[in-house]
């Protein structure tokens, strides 16, 4: 399958996805510079973690105006699978491809730790290989991961199953104690209405190899591969 990883000035996880997709999963993956205007023949797009434009105005606020974002928008609106991780999630929010906003962590500190998540929705291109309710480990590393959405919209999101990952404890309980940043309803990841755009704060690429302590995150990328294979078959 053909993946594209968009590189913004200040992205710093871009090479990590190239490694996991290219070396671990043996997929075709290319880096696309933010000033390009085309995603080429990519079948799945990843917006990476990092600090695009230094996060100097607001996280993701400047990156969403990069020339490539027009192509990303078109790709997403056309149903193409788009995954935004960490800063990539923040960019998707600023670009209006996902609803809501990020606030600073409630501790007001950057937090990096191994985090447990509960998979809420397996009906997305990035989660189909998980079991609903499964507890997985994926490290977090962010200063602004405190997701917020107005109550009315939040209810809609909940009702439509658009919460994809929630911070949880080892029992799968989404307790306040298990919430590392103060996100409303322990939200760690959400999807758009069509389900093809996913934003998540945790880093599945950091738990994609046994040698790094966990392979729980690998299924995010494997699900995408399976989804694309399925779609390829349907198209034939």
């Amino acid at each position, binding site marked *: 399958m053909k993946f594209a990883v968009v590189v913004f000035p*200040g992205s*710093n996880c871009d090479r990590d996805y190239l490694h996991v997709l290219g070396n671990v999963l043996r997929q075709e993956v290319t880096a696309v510079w933010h000033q390009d205007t085309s995603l080429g023949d990519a079948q799945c797009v990843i917006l990476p973690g990092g*600090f695009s*434009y230094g996060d100097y105005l607001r996280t993701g606020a400047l990156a969403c105006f990069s020339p490539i974002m027009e192509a990303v928008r078109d790709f997403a609106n056309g149903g193409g699978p788009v995954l935004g991780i960490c800063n990539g999630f923040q960019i998707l929010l600023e670009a209006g491809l996902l609803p809501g906003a990020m606030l600073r962590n409630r501790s007001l500190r*950057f937090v*990096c730790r191994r985090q447990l998540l509960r998979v809420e929705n397996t009906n997305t291109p990035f989660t189909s290989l998980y079991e609903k309710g499964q507890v997985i480990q994926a490290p977090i*590393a962010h200063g602004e991961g405190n997701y917020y959405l107005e109550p009315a919209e939040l209810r809609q999101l909940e009702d439509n199953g658009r919460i994809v990952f929630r911070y949880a404890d080892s029992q799968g309980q989404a307790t306040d104690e298990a919430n590392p940043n103060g996100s409303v309803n322990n939200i760690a990841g959400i999807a758009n209405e069509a389900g093809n755009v996913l934003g998540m704060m945790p880093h599945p690429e950091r738990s994609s190899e046994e*040698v*790094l302590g966990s392979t729980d995150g690998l299924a995010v990328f494997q699900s995408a591969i399976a989804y694309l294979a399925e779609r390829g078959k349907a198209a034939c």
Partner: protein
Amino acid sequence: MLTPQEIQQTQAWRPMGLKDEEYQKICGILGRLPNYTELGMYAVLWSEHCAYKHSRPLFKNFPTKAERILVGPGENAGAIDIGDGLAIVMKVESHNHPSAVEPYQGAATGVGGILRDIFTMGARPIANLNSLRFGDPASEHVRRLVRGVVAGIGDYGNCTGVPTVAGEVSFADCYAGNCLVNAMSVGVVSHSLITKASASGVGNPVMVVGSTTGRDGIHGATFASAELSEENEEKRPSVQVGDPFTEKLLIEACLELIESGVVVGIQDMGAAGLTSSSSEMASNASSGIEMDLSLVPQREKGMNSYEIMLSESQERMLVVPKAGAEEQVKAIFKKWGLNAVVVGKVTDDGMLRVFHNGQLAAEVPAKSLSTEGAPSYVPPAKRPDYLDKLWSYDFQQLPDLEPDEIQEAFWQLLTSANIVSRRWVWEQYDQDVQLGTLVGPGSDAAVLRIPGTKRGIALTIDCNGRYCYQNPKGGAALAVAEAARNIYASGGLPLAITDGLNLGNPEKPEIYWQLTQTVQGVAAACRALGTPVTGGNVSLYNETEGEAIYPTPVIGMLGLLEDAEQYATIAFKNQGDLIALVGEQGEELSGSEYLHVRRNLVAGSGPKLDLDAEKRNGEFCRAVISSGLVSSCHDVSDGGCAIALAECALAGKIGAHVRLYCPNRRDALLFGESQARYVLSVPENNYDALRGLALQRGVSVSLLGRVGGDRFTVELGETKVIDSDLGKMLDQWTGGLDRLLGEK
């Protein structure tokens, strides 16, 4: 700006930190009176921070050569061969004074500066470490410093995408007014891409790349070379402001540029900015440089030549490409949104010649500004009197712990500032970006895999300042020994060090004596352990209101693992594993955290140094780790055997039962800090093999107990003296620093 005559009349060199005889020396070099810009250039480059005036003559003691050392001291950073055509580049640098007055920016720019030293060499930075010292965490001022420094280090490293993988933080009153912030950075580079700071090739262009130049940080290096006092608030403008986003772009642009093959030489603009980078590059190549300052991209209007030459604006580099490659350089930097401007050219007359607005603004021999050109001093040395008092302390007069006091003493130590978990600190650092971190903070050393190879590296940074206060030479050697122990305990072979020597004012005979002893101690241990010095940093004048810090030679060490995955961590892993001690059970109390915490006492000459035992026991541990015999390994350091065992249990979240036999003092047995010791856990089936190997190598191994359960218990003979619920220990220890800093 003052005229040369006005400078002479008003003795304007004095506030810049130059001595009268140094001013005379400058007049002699130039054959005339220096102008204000020239005086400023000399003042900064002849500061202690840049010129190592008081320490340089001592460095000849350091071992600096070995087959693996590709680049030793004198360049931006050392480079060590790790096989497969790759080298590790590493260096440590201090940012103590800036952090004392402006903790966030001081620490952040410390990280930025050391990162530039790494990628200037052509290496991609793959890891950051840091070594921090503060006063009593109960003080609100100290808490403010800790918060600022940790956030500054975190934000800069996190944004640049370099994981912070290891470090150390400790607290002692002597650092209350003069905190220490030593940042270390580590990169990886192909041998063929190692790049140096050399301006060779007459006619080659000289280019300023990266950020713009402003008035920030002028005389930062001078400020770093004086004692701190109450006037420091006024020195705030001497502290630079960091921009990690620009640094990240600069990393990518510089690495792309170096890979393109057009770079002749490159140097970062650290202390003394344009002055140091241009004079060093010219001096290294025995060439000259001519520059027009009007061409330097500036962020403020109306800057004069003095300000432009001395600015310490961050995230800038000086590049000498091959003539004709100017446009290629500009194109690469434009892609990354950065400036790249030709400001001058390489000449052959050995002069640094600077024009501004069409006028000659400065003209000095480049070599006279360089380290070799700067004056150096061998001041009088005197052994300090305080040592007599410490060394004559009679430990017989100190009451031992009664068995029923031990549980309480254990808890007191476990939850004390220098022993509680550093989780509060390291959680603010991205430890995992780049996917190389196999072992992050919280074990003895960090372990990283090296992409494209089977190999791994182990990294640590260590020093026990109290040992150094009690015995400057022995303590410095123990700092190297402890670093080596952390590498060995992780399964690595110690290869080389970078050192950050932090001391007081060397113009005081007692401090200069400490400095000479420190260098001898580091040198002796590096020789014995086979770890040459590849470069480092000296930070002197660490005093407040005349009171010096403990001599604090922090040692950053690199170790190599032939197989990255054959590492050990400190964590107990399996129920039923046996626990063994490597090394002799100790009898020493001197220098221990126990004495400090429980008895409020610093006494004796510190723990005994035995470099042969260090090497023998360390090599043994490495052997049993790489052959897969053991489940965990941890060196015994602060808090002694009881605390080391507790740390293994806490890291593994699994209990342990230990029985010790006490020949003499209970306190020394449990909490003494005798060196060259490790605790291992080993599957019972492997124990005989382990014993056999120990016998062969003449290493002492004794059985202490067994891993398992959910309690941590220690018996002395038949008497249970420590019996604690592991869950409660985890809670108190893990969140201990949060509580001590008032964050909970």
